[in-house]
């Protein structure tokens, strides 16, 4: 009997977990269920497991059990007080060799991207970046199901499905918000395994002298409930003020498509799309965005999409729940007016 392990890297900084970790536990559970029948027939066991590194982070390990981990391997030591590539990747590579997971998922955050390539190289295995679809599928010539990792390629024009036939673990990075957040079950039971920490301060090869927190520019677009995005159709950077007014009215944030970042109207932190952030807000308003594929792949999972564009043939209308063909400089002020009136009426 062997245990087929589906692993998730639980990302935390300063004792705060990155929610993509829970999203990935949801994915790992789904993948595990896809091999359940096959495993049962072979007398194997399937397990969803998390790996957590940090300093005084046992509470996060407990939380991971609530989000669906059967087991969490915990490396709790001051050497992991903040993230550094070397001690992190070496620890993950060592624990992977110890338990031989079948699949290993890492969030495609700045931290996760720094880490995933190093872990995969160290383990000499395959890694597929920024997957938007994952499944355990039957593949000719393989007894067990393999991880089929689908990602947009070439600006989102093509979806490529990548697999890793013989090396293990099969690794993928997944962006925040690509998959839904699983339910938290506070009655869930599981095991926390404290692992021995071998990493030392000397082996870290780098130390952070200072953390500089930027002022003002802290937009968390990935987890915003409402996003009001603008594109080339704004015509002038002043148009962003109008979008900001609407976003403020809705308690949301301003997003943008790539041309606005390229022309320096707004910072990269606001960019929605394949080369920016993936979002899934409850409400996404796209104003003056034509809807290039590279933008659509970043926002099409939003709950409700309103598109405003003067070109009735703009491809953004293909993903919108409701489209308004018209001049955004007329439509948005009217939206503001009607939303304010709605609020008055219900106040």
């Amino acid at each position, binding site marked *: 009997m062997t245990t087929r392990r589906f692993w998730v890297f639980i990302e935390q900084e300063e004792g705060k977990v990155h929610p993509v970790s829970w999203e990935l536990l949801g994915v790992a559970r789904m993948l595990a269920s896809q091999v359940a029948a096959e495993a049962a027939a072979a007398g194997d066991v399937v397990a969803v497991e998390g790996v957590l590194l940090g300093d005084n982070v046992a509470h996060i390990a407990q939380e991971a059990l609530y989000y669906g981990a059967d087991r969490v391997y915990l490396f709790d030591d001051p050497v992991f007080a903040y993230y550094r590539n070397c001690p992190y990747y070496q620890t993950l590579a060592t624990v992977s060799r110890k338990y031989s997971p079948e699949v290993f998922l890492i969030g495609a955050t700045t931290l996760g991207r720094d880490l995933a390539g190093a872990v995969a190289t160290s383990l000499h295995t395959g890694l597929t970046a920024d997957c938007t679809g994952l499944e355990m599928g039957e593949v000719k010539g393989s007894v067990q199901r393999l991880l089929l990792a689908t990602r947009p390629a070439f600006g989102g024009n093509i979806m490529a499905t990548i697999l890793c036939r013989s090396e293990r673990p099969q690794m993928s990075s997944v962006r925040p918000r690509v998959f839904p957040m699983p339910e938290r079950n506070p009655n869930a039971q599981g095991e926390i395994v404290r692992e021995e920490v071998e990493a030392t301060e000397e082996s870290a090869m780098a130390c952070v002298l200072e953390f500089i927190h930027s002022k003002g520019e802290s937009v968390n677009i990935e987890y915003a409930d409402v996003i009001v995005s603008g594109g080339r159709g704004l015509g002038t950077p002043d148009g962003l003020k109008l979008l900001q007014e609407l976003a403020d009215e809705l308690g949301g944030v301003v997003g943008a498509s790539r041309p606005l970042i390229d022309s320096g109207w707004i910072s990269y932190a606001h960019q929605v799309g394949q080369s920016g952030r993936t979002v899934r807000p409850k409400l996404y308003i796209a104003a003056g965005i034509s809807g290039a594929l590279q933008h659509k792949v970043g926002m099409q999972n939003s709950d409700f999409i309103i598109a405003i564009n003067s070109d*009735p043939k703009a491809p953004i209308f293909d993903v919108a729940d409701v489209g308004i063909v018209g001049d955004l400089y007329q439509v948005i002020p009217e939206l503001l007016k009607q939303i304010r009136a709605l609020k008055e009426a219900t106040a």
Partner: protein
Amino acid sequence: MFHALVAVKQVPDTTNIRIDPDTGNLVREGVPAIMNPYDAHALAEAVRWKRQLGGKVTVVSMGPPSFISTLREAVELGADRGVLLTDRKFAGADTLATSYVLAETIKAIHEQDPIHLVFFGKQAIDGDTAQVGPGVAVRMGLPIVTYAVKIREVNLEEGRAVIERKTERWTEVVETSLPVLLTCEKEIAEIPFAPLPDLIRSLRYDPEMWTLEGPCPFALDQIGVKGSPTIVYKMGTPPLPQPGEKINARETGVEEAVKFALDKAAKAGIVQVILGGAR
């Protein structure tokens, strides 16, 4: 003497890209090619430090002979030496096999002429994986600083550097030993205009062509398709979403069109989101 190495990739310009339907690989012929923009900014920073400290900049790339144009462009931007890794057997490499070839090459150059800083762009705009830089760092046993936005200090005598990197949460000021591998954001340096001598030199510059014949040995099972654990299983077009309803404000008037949209949102249960916003 200060020595920086920059790994550069030639990438197709624009989104006007074709895929070979049989192999699933990128068809590079006929598509305008440029130096990966992140690599160009990394190179500009390497050259800036060379001008400050003296020394030299070596550029390495892996690809077909058509990549010579990108190495010439690197010389125009201030590189002193260019090495092109070109052999049919390198083709079809995934990020793991690519990192192997680059790491072996950089090690060989390091033995000839010790390197202090190894520069990569943060990612290539055609693949967007950001995996090769970290892979090379692991293979060479070097510290890595990803998402580098500024090099504050390079101290050759003490063998250390101070580098700023920007993450989603904050900017970190990192002190590392040398040599160090950086993957760079565009902010790392502006791309300067080429001085005339560099421009003239680049026109006639022929990079060194390194192949499986030499001068650097490569293990055949680590390169190209053989050295790549991942394969493209299938390619497809993205699924078509169900388009929603559209209303033309020019026909109905703006007021009516907005009312229509908000009605739809309310029916979809979004009204609480709209009403819940800050006042």
